[in-house]
């Protein structure tokens, strides 16, 4: 019930126009980079393997995203948790 009320106000704030804009920015960031989902996952696995050469991490916890940072530019972002103590695998 509460969620429905919340959703009503949230969706009222975010118009379909804004939603279209958000989806477009994301799709275009991928298109312009020329990287599809499969390639991005391949890259993620490789980056995780490289990080693991230096730091003990859980390769499954590594995340990779393409994000738009300005009108013209997108950036590739890699998130990797680090271990809190040496010898303890992060993730």
């Amino acid at each position, binding site marked *: 019930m509460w969620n429905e009320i919340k959703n009503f106000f949230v969706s009222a704030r975010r*118009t*379909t*126009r*804004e939603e*279209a*804009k958000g*989806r*477009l*920015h994301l*799709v*275009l960031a991928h*298109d*312009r980079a020329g990287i599809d989902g499969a390639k991005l996952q391949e890259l993620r696995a490789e980056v995780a393997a490289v990080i693991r050469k230096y730091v003990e991490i859980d390769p499954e916890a590594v995340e990779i995203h393409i994000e738009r940072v300005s*009108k*013209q530019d997108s950036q590739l972002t890699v998130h990797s948790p680090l271990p809190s103590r040496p010898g303890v695998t992060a993730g």
Partner: protein
Amino acid sequence: MGRAIVITSGKGGVGKTTATANLGTGLAQLGHSVVLIDADIGLRNLDVVMGLENRIVFHLVDVIQGRCTPQKALIRDRRIENLFLLPASQTDDKDSVTPDQMKALIIELKSSYDYVIIDCPAGIEQGFRNAIAGADEAIIVATPEVSSIRDADRVVGLLAAQSTPTRLMVNRISPAMVKRGDMLSQADVIEILALELVGAIPLDDEIVATTNRGLPAALNGRSPAAKAFAELARRVSGAEVEEEGVRETGVGFFAKLGRALGLSPA
């Protein structure tokens, strides 16, 4: 020497052919000589949008393959001075023409006419390559929708790779829907594609009706879209046009009162 402008979009059904017909008509009305080329070989349509389908004898592929001169294949529009159509072939396919052959033909036409407007087929394959080959500049037609803008962005990239200057025409804008927040605005489209705007055409039932008759809307110039197309033609021909884009028409006090009283259409 004339200018060759390709009308392209990536996605089909967004109004390239209608834009070509109306831009050409508008430029001819301004006193320029204009040739329209239907580059959609195998799926020709510019002839029916222009209402010239019954007068086709020769076509683009005949000219390219040397079966007749360009002058012989051009259909003169009888409603307006200095407007000509070079129709596509309906029976050949896209690779019966090469980009170099198109380039040579367009250079020849530019020596006799002020504008050569090329109606590009949908897609980014051979037909697109042929259509953009001889163009000095491009106008991208996009509707305010995710799929159209996405495809337009691909085409912008391909045109940039061959350094063709590119401008944007946003088609079928509904000011009422933009106001409600249910449609991307022309400003949104400009921002996303990072292109200069050359025209903004409102959604207008008249376009369907005039297309049914084979009359480019710009010929009569009464409807909102016809006015916007005339503005597009003025801007393409280099005139400074003050007002940019679509205004919401018919929602003023008197229009509302008229509607309430049943005096003007809702």
